[in-house]
């Protein structure tokens, strides 16, 4: 019971965490990436399609990343080079991704009743660790993407706070004019951030279809990209905070499944709305912009 809940929490938290770490890097560079939902969606679809046609998990993961990177490249062209409004461009990317994945799914796999399935990514047990009661199977008998997601938390945290690259990234997000004046290349930094986020949201999408659902339905990302946006805010633009917030939101979603199964008196919609409502409450109490990068969302047209 507890074990199932914890396992479900980790399963729900992983795609959110992967996407949110990408979003964190992008936002630290000064770009608000609303298109993250779309990048997850194309990752989910292309990962499944490539695995289905090739039979190879590795090719599936590669395709998922490539597709999400391509979509983010389009977004980067718009918001970095053309300096268009990031909200409008990101929303367009989301709408486009929903349409493209839907059309291609219908065209390649038809509408017939049974959904296509693949053999999913297998969990990898980490030797004796996996045999620890309760936490063993929860933490150490998971798919490779779970280990990757959680290993990335300290890596991203230290990269942003302790490395030269992290400093440059933060400069682009806080004072783009100053960063450019120092020759750091704001366009380059924001492009790089969006490409890294492309890989991570591609993997987040791939997790949904290749490790969790093993199939695809239209709009399978179901708002998880937007939850990742919340996670970055609730985590106060910090990788450790993002990790904690992902687990918290993962637990809220897992709790909803559990309570539904046991016929709880609390309506399940309450838990579905919880991540979003929680974000609003956090924002209302902490003030929206206190910890946000100063130049977040502001287009930076180079003179």
């Amino acid at each position, binding site marked *: 019971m507890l074990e199932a809940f914890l396992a479900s929490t980790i399963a729900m938290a992983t795609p959110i965490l992967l996407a949110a770490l990408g979003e964190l890097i992008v936002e630290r560079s000064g770009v608000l990436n609303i298109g993250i939902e779309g990048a997850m969606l194309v990752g989910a679809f292309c990962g499944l399609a490539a695995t289905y046609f090739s039979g190879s998990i590795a090719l599936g993961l590669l395709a998922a990343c490539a597709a999400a990177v391509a979509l983010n490249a389009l977004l980067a062209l718009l918001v970095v080079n*053309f300096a*268009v409004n990031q*909200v409008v461009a990101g*929303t367009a990317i*989301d709408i486009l991704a929903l349409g493209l994945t839907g059309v291609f799914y219908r*065209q390649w796999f038809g509408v017939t009743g049974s959904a296509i399935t693949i053999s999913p990514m297998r969990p990898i047990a980490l030797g004796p660790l996996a045999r620890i009661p309760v936490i063993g199977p929860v933490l150490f008998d998971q798919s490779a993407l779970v280990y990757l997601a959680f290993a990335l938390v300290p890596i991203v945290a230290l990269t942003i706070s302790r490395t030269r690259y992290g400093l440059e990234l933060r400069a682009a997000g806080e004072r783009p004019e100053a960063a450019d004046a120092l020759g750091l290349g704001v366009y380059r930094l924001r492009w790089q951030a969006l490409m890294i986020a492309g890989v991570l949201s591609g993997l987040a999408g791939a997790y949904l279809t290749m490790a969790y659902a093993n199939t695809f339905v239209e709009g399978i990302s179901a708002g998880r990209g937007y939850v990742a946006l919340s996670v970055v805010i609730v985590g106060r633009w910090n990788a450790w905070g993002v990790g904690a917030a992902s687990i918290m939101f993962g637990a809220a979603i897992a709790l909803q499944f559990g309570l539904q199964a046991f016929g709880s008196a609390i309506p399940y919609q309450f838990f579905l709305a919880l991540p979003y409502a929680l974000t609003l409450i956090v924002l209302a109490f902490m003030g*929206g912009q206190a910890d946000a990068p100063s130049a977040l969302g*502001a*287009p930076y*047209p180079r003179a």
Partner: protein
Amino acid sequence: MGATLTARLAAVTRSLGALAIAATTIAIVLLLLGASPLAVFADLWRGAFGNWLAATDTLVKATPLVFTGLAIAIAFQGALWNIGADGQLVIGALVAGAIGPALGGWPHPIAMLAMIAAGAAGGAAWGGLAGWLRARREVNEVISTIMLNFVAVQILSWAVHGPLMEPSRSFPKSVVIAPVAQFGFYLEPSRLNLGMGLGLVVAVGCHLGLFHSAAGFELRALGRNRRASAFFGIPIARLTMGTMMLSGALAGVGGAVQVSAITHRLYETMSPGWGYEAIAVALVARLNPLAIVPAAILFGALDNGSQAMQRADAVSPVLVNVIQGMVIIILVAFDALAARGIRTTLWGGAEGAGGTVATGAAAEAGDA
């Protein structure tokens, strides 16, 4: 009224050009997928305008887009990036659908007005919440409206599974609203109703308010330069609140009209994404309230035609989403290219300090 005829023509040309490029690209994609673009476009047209019934239903499907499109246009004119028209429409529909069954015995026009007022109130509350967070707590309205969309959907779902569920409790839907609260159809079997007429009136009202009132002038000034507006004493917080409430009210009326005219009760899903589609509508209309109506009819026609296309060509109706997304991307790219060499681009002002999301200049429609 400073825009010259040439500038207006250029704006119209850009909108039509964006549609043409989107259509061409989609034709190529369809060819690659092995479908015939000509057949698909022909079926889209047949489904949208092929006969009297199809054409009138295009107007019916365009009606919610008129209201959400106006909601987006008004907010974007003030550089308030309201992504929450969907949630505002849902809450408007919810409030209208909740009071609708209780209106039995009321005079017909009063009951219909009550529905519209309920929708406006619900939408205004939902939009106003985001406006309050922006004005008083410096919360980015993009994030808050996205979050409020998801919360709204869950509230509706809870309502039709719980307190508002029909007595037989077999399906997640609410009780039918009182007949006096229903709009009724003209020229049946068409589903033409008061909604589109109301939309036209509201569009004219928005145009007058935006271009011929002091508040409209202040709103457009806010959209163009927030810092200068503050300097000239424009009450930014009040204007932000008011605009978000008005924007929400417009979307909420769209929801109430849908309940009064078409569904007559609440279902778990009240919007197929009209609040997001409205962004494409508003951009094609260059944020000009009068142009919202033809732009909404265009996208309503695509929605309506996609049903026929789906049946005849086995192409997913979400092809319409591809068109919407592409039109937005091409239009903003056009604007950026047209503004090249100018320090401030159309969709993104150079100003941005204080963490606002692209406190950019509003579209050139502001000159009209």
